[in-house]
């Protein structure tokens, strides 16, 4: 039986001992967490955003280039590189031993989303880097000026091919943990993150491109937002008690803000298509929405790990279900 706050702080009044009404009865060890909340700082939440932004931008660049929209291409390429650099910074900054960043390339582990992600990011980085540098070709001396554009194009398409992986592997990265609300959300998280990446890429397009080129960005915004909103709705409503952390506290505020900004951004993108200013604001709104969504998902997971009820109750329910189904309490299941 949990009795609310496990440990009285110093100088707490009598009222502090009064148990809160627990949502469900469960037992725990002095209310201490069972799984450990991630030690990551918001660097990682920011990385989720910048990684998605890089992916969305790369797709934007490729689409723009392929359909003859140079502004989208340019903005996409530059943003992809910028977001990638930011991503790398966030990733390294969050390491306990930043000087050992290169150890990430020691192994290539399919069981580790972070290992896979590192390889994806590396390949993406190379491709996006080349394609962004190629934008500067006109400023460069002769041979480079001639050589770079085709390389840039190749890099651009290479990056675009990798972009969906870059955008969605982070969802697997979060889901492949014991953090209850992350793991429970694994079917939807990739869709949310993919959608969010598209929306943020679209946001870049809306900011950077003239209305004449911005049509695809608007459509990307609508589709991305649809993925994101649908996924988030599922996560917030179908995970039983594990949906709760996404609707409460800081995570709930982030996600609500993200939803509002998404709706605002999409509405602006669709309705304000003739105004460069409205479009740019809509783009900014979409970028902010993407950021808020990632922070919300991040915080929701952290909150679910910090309270043992999110570990104990679902596991107890699972055991009870198995017992009801007459299955052995442990069901061996091969992959």
């Amino acid at each position, binding site marked *: 039986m949990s009795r609310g706050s496990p440990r009285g702080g110093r100088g707490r009044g009598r009222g502090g001992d009064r148990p809160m009404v627990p949502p469900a009865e469960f*037992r725990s060890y002095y209310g201490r967490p069972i799984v450990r909340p991630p030690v990551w700082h918001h660097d990682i939440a920011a990385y989720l955003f910048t990684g998605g932004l890089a992916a969305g931008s790369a797709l934007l660049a490729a689409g723009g280039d392929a359909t003859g929209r140079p502004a989208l291409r340019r903005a996409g390429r530059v943003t992809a590189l910028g977001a990638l650099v930011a991503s790398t910074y966030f990733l390294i900054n969050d390491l306990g031993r930043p000087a050992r960043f290169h150890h990430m390339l020691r192994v290539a582990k399919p069981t*580790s989303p972070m290992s896979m992600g590192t390889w994806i990011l590396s390949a993406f980085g190379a491709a996006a880097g080349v394609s962004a540098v190629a934008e500067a070709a006109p400023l460069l001396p002769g041979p480079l000026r001639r050589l770079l554009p085709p390389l840039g194009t190749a890099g651009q398409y290479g990056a675009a091919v990798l972009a969906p992986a870059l955008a969605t592997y982070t969802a697997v990265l979060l889901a492949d*943990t014991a953090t209850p609300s992350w793991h429970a959300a694994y079917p939807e998280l*990739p869709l949310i993150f993919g959608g969010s990446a598209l929306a943020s890429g679209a946001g870049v397009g809306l900011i950077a491109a003239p209305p004449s080129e911005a049509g695809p960005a608007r459509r990307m915004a609508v589709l991305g937002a649809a993925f994101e909103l649908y996924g988030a709705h599922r996560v917030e409503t179908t995970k039983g008690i594990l949906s709760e952390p996404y609707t409460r506290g800081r995570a709930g505020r982030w996600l609500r803000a993200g939803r509002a900004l998404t709706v605002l951004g999409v509405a602006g993108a669709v309705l304000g298509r003739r105004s460069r200013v409205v479009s740019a604001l809509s783009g900014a709104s979409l970028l902010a929405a993407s950021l808020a969504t990632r922070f919300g998902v991040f915080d929701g997971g952290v909150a679910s790990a910090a309270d043992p009820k999110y570990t104990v109750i679902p596991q107890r329910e699972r055991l009870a279900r198995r017992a009801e189904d007459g299955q052995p309490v442990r069901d061996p299941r*091969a*992959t």
Partner: protein
Amino acid sequence: MTGNSLYGPLDPAPDAGWTDAPPRMGFFTDTSVCIGCKACEVACKEWNLVPDDGFDLLGTSYDNTGGLSANSWRHVAFIEQRGAPHGDVLGAAAGPQFLGMPGRDLPGRDPDAPRTDFRWLMMSNVCKHCTHAGCLDVCPTGSLFRTEFGTVVVQEDICNGCGYCIPACPYGVIDQRGDDGRAWKCTLCYDRIGDGLSPACATACPTQSIQYGELSQLRERAADRVAHLHGQGVGEARLYGHDPSDGVGGDGAFFLLLDEPEVYGLPPDPIVPTRDLPAMWRRAGLAGLAMAAAVVVSFLGGRP
């Protein structure tokens, strides 16, 4: 590598490429004889040169360690308990558990009514050295690796402190050391067992609550012990983490408990997150395809 590489019963060392692996080694921690002396905590620190964990009176019975952490690789839990343990699967009607913060409303406050049902449970917790170890699976550097003994070890010369292992552990064991940045946990004294010695904690344990040995033998011994205790009327004795068909493929360090796992701070039904990894990758792939399709539609579709 076999079909059960991610989930299900498995001998993990051969699966991890150890061709002539010795028998799998592990811990059996029998809490029915634990006296809560904490020799395991100290012996571990003396051998592994683990820093102290701070000087805080936690008020959680005699537990001032709090839990396993980067600086505590063994942790002795203390549970002061009145009322008989309940076997309910859900634990919904579990008996009152004294949390160290007595309210004013606990029953039986009448000094004329002797308390005969009081229990003080103690349990030395440790890394489980899972057959399917979430921490190991997700480690991006190969710092965490499966040893030839089937144990799971962080290589301090490799770890770059990415922190991914920490939320990946279904038991909340592995942790980052703040001033050091790297992840730390029990190594099952990899350096000692390689030389045929027992781990420091098991060596010190005065009552043999912590037993080290070949996992297969420990499992047999544990089963006998449970039967023995049941014969002595200790019906609440049960094993935890011994079953190779559980959610982590069985623990390399398993326990005999006298109450439900969550009472000791253990998850009642842990599952390695990686069990669902193939499904996750599939979902990610679908989402990626959806993204690509969305981009194609966006660029090739008509003007909205």
